[in-house]
């Protein structure tokens, strides 16, 4: 670990500053410019993201920046390891895709500024900046501020339509998120009181198993789980994600819930590498398994497409937490643990692309039909073939069928589960895949069925928007073809887990 | 000298405390909002005045003394305003709270 700012560390500052500049420009320039500001900043932000990934890949080490030249523990550090780099690039690609998709839905108004476009474009940038701050945060309190930034950017997106039920959903989301943040902060307080630092790297050197460390990590984990909507904290998610406008749902389901998950990974693998946590990891795995089963079964029973997709998010978040019992397994060595760890992260990324594509496809379908009742989707496959194709491609990842990133992730989870003798997780993965197959085919069967009368579309859907959706879905598919090299990128900066386990 | 000041402080603060106590008893025992307000604002403002007076004997310098007096004046202003508003709300809603 470098002990000063590294070359290229300034890129990390830019990753946060660029979106923030956008927010600060959008408000005074007003709604007539908000979209333009966002669209101009997107390529720049994407370039910064790619540059960070290239920097990490080239130097084969962590990028680091000490803000204001104040060294931790007094100052705040930003750090990007391979995992951060991959998440930053994922977020940048998705934000750009969602931005292109949303141009038609939140257009620049003629005349006076309008509410929804201004709020959407400003908050889209804010979500982006907050995500980057979470991915590169090296200080537990700075991460708390980043989490709050994310909350305040995400909650208003839920109620952007202003319908009463979305207001209730947004309020419930906010209350869960606030409880999560305050528990996280409480844990950080205990860690500071015990070890005198909030810096992750310094902390990992000082932390020892004991009541304070255990209490702190438990509180922070529970808080983050509430924000990540892991079972049994999942109840807020479906109404919030299903009630938001489609591009906002894509951000929320694809990216926003990954941020607290990412921090759980940080905590468990980077802050506490020296604490044996097998039982706690099993608990996380059990909650994940419950999420998979409950989420999938409830998804099967939904009458509305967006709610079905939202419940499928509940289930797919469950997979993320299966990596904990498999990756934290000191006795069998790290060979398979590394496989499970990579599988978890790959699942996070491929689900991000797949779910964003599916929510936006659902949005297009709802826009075209004027409703999203699954029972009345017949004929839409003929009317909007590309959109339905995108939905299906996203579905491949959810089910874990080849070729897709979800397939590789789930296959790796299965391998690790069997190799480590924890076969019960394999059963869960397979059952979850079957159930996901059930709800995806339920939708596809309806959509591809011939309608008794030809479908009349309420509005025409531009090919450009469909192309964006299918492109994001293809990203999820392509993740199944290019596994090895990016996966090595994921391991940069992790001394504990040998890359050998992948081969 | 300082002993005499201390005695004065103790006397004044005790007197102030007595008025506070009286005001609080009034708040708890009086039957309706208006008389409760009467007990509270009058007695407590006087009580605070005595406490401040007592502290003035201990004040270090003119500026500190002015600050203490300022506290009393602001408390008077706030008390008077709030009492007015509560009294009017009580009268308009006709409640006995």
């Amino acid at each position, binding site marked *: 670990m470098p002990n000063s*700012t590294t070359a290229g560390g*300034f890129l990390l*500052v830019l990753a946060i*500053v660029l979106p*923030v*500049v956008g*927010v*600060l420009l959008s*408000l*005074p320039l*007003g709604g007539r410019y908000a979209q333009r500001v966002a669209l101009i900043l997107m390529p720049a932000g994407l370039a910064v993201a790619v540059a960070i990934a290239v920097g990490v890949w080239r130097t084969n080490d962590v990028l680091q*920046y*000490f*803000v*204001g*030249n*104040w060294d931790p*523990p*007094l*100052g*705040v550090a930003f750090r990007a390891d391979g995992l951060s780099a991959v998440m930053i690039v994922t977020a940048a690609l998705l934000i750009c895709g969602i931005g292109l998709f949303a141009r038609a839905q939140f257009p620049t108004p003629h005349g*006076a*500024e*309008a*509410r*929804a476009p201004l*709020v959407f474009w*400003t*908050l889209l940038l*804010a979500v982006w*900046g907050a995500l980057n*701050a979470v991915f590169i945060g090296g200080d537990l*309190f*700075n991460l708390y*501020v980043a989490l709050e*930034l994310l909350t*305040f*950017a995400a*909650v*208003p997106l839920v*109620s*952007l339509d*202003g319908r009463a039920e979305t*207001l209730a959903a947004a309020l419930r989301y906010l209350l869960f998120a606030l409880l999560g943040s305050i528990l996280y902060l*409480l844990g950080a307080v205990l860690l*500071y*009181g*015990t*070890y*005198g*630092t909030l810096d992750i790297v310094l902390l990992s050197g000082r932390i020892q198993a004991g*009541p*304070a460390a255990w*209490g702190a990590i438990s509180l922070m984990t529970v808080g983050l789980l509430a924000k990540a909507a892991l079972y049994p904290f999942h109840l807020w998610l479906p109404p919030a994600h299903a009630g938001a406008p489609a591009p906002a749902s894509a951000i929320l389901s694809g990216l926003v819930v990954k941020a607290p998950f990412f921090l759980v990974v940080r905590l468990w693998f980077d802050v506490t590498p020296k604490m044996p946590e097998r039982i706690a990891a099993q608990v996380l795995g059990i909650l994940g398994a419950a999420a998979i089963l409950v989420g999938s079964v409830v998804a099967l029973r939904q009458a509305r497409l967006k709610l079905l997709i939202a419940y499928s998010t509940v289930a797919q978040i469950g997979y993320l937490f299966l990596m904990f019992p498999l990756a934290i397994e000191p006795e069998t060595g790290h060979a398979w643990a590394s496989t499970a760890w990579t599988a978890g992260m790959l699942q996070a990324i491929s689900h991000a692309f797949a779910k964003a594509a599916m929510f936006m496809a659902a949005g297009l379908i709802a826009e075209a039909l004027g409703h999203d009742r699954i029972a009345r989707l017949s004929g839409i496959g003929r009317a909007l073939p590309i959109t339905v194709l995108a939905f299906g491609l996203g579905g491949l990842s959810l089910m874990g069928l080849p070729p897709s990133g979800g397939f590789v992730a789930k296959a790796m989870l299965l391998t690790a589960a069997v190799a480590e003798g924890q076969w019960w997780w394999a059963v869960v993965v397979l059952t979850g895949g079957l159930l996901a197959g059930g709800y995806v085919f339920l939708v596809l069967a309806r959509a591809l069925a011939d309608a008794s009368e030809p479908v009349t579309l309420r509005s025409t859907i531009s090919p450009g928007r469909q192309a964006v959706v299918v492109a994001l879905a293809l990203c999820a598919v392509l993740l199944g073809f290019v596994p090895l090299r990016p996966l090595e990128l994921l391991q940069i900066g992790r001394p504990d887990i040998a890359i050998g386990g992948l081969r | 000298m300082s002993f005499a000041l201390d005695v004065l402080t103790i006397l004044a603060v005790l007197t102030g405390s007595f008025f506070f106590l009286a005001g609080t008893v009034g708040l708890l025992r009086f039957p309706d909002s208006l008389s409760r307000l009467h007990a509270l604002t009058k007695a407590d403002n006087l009580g605070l005045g005595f406490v401040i007076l007592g502290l003035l004997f201990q004040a270090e310098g003119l500026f500190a003394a002015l600050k203490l007096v300022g506290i009393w004046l602001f408390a008077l*202003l706030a008390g*008077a*305003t709030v009492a*007015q*508003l509560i009294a*009017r709300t009580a009268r308009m809603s006709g409640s006995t709270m």
Partner: protein
Amino acid sequence: MAFDIGLATLVLGVAAWTIAARDTFAAVIGFVAFGLLLALVWVRVAAPDVALAEAALGSGLTGGLLLSASSRLAHTNGSAVIEKPSAIMRLAAALFCTLMSAALAAIVLLLPEPAPTLAPQAAANLAATGLGNPVTAVLMAYRAIDTLLEVVVLLLALAGTWSLAPDHLWGGLPGRGDPVDRGGVLTFDAQLLVPIGILVGIHIFWVGSVAPGGEFQGATILAAMWILAMMTGLVDAPGVSGRWLRLALVVGPAVFLAIGLAGFALAGAFLAYPESHAKLVILTIEVPVTLSIAATLALLVAGPPNRALK
């Protein structure tokens, strides 16, 4: 010690009242008292800066916000009685929370001795910032990035609050528009207090570089004065699309960010200040930041646009 035990007991009692009170309005009153007592506790733990922030923000502004909300929701109390969780649920919750408190208290009692601290480092580097108040040095120099992001958090909260307006009222004015207590004692008060309050707010902000105080505490007082003036109709709330208002809201974070970026060139790092002029640079940031925070806080209390622009 006796005083501390008494104070702690009082805080606990008021907090319990806040949770247990039947009536929401009464609970909110309890919360305001709780905040004020907590400010005293902050003085007792040698944190006067936090005491000021707690009294102004935690008790004052939050209390005002909750009071007005509870009076607007006053007649919805009844419906909630039906939806109360069952006695068994409540008992389980009480048990769980007691255990949690006990565990936390145990961890506090087991905290290491001597306690780890960054106080020596914060004091040693104080000279490099040109400041005399180490808390302000943490906020404006050592961890300036937290403060910068936090001002953005405030802005986002305001954008989120505004986003709740119905579409046709976008650009309109927040609040109800009818001054409370027209020509009454509150208006008189506002006329008297607002100028004094503005002076006090500026003073609190200004002394923050050397003594307890700072931009957040000062800005809160300024915000309170604006709220008082809006409540009593001395000034009307601004329309949310006004160019000047928007500029006032972002000028603080924008200057902060600009100077932070200039640090790349002038001091070798983002949010680093040239040592010879550190204090001047920090003040240059603090003045607009105070203005922006004050405006944001006041408008957060005022709420989403509620009336069409005249």
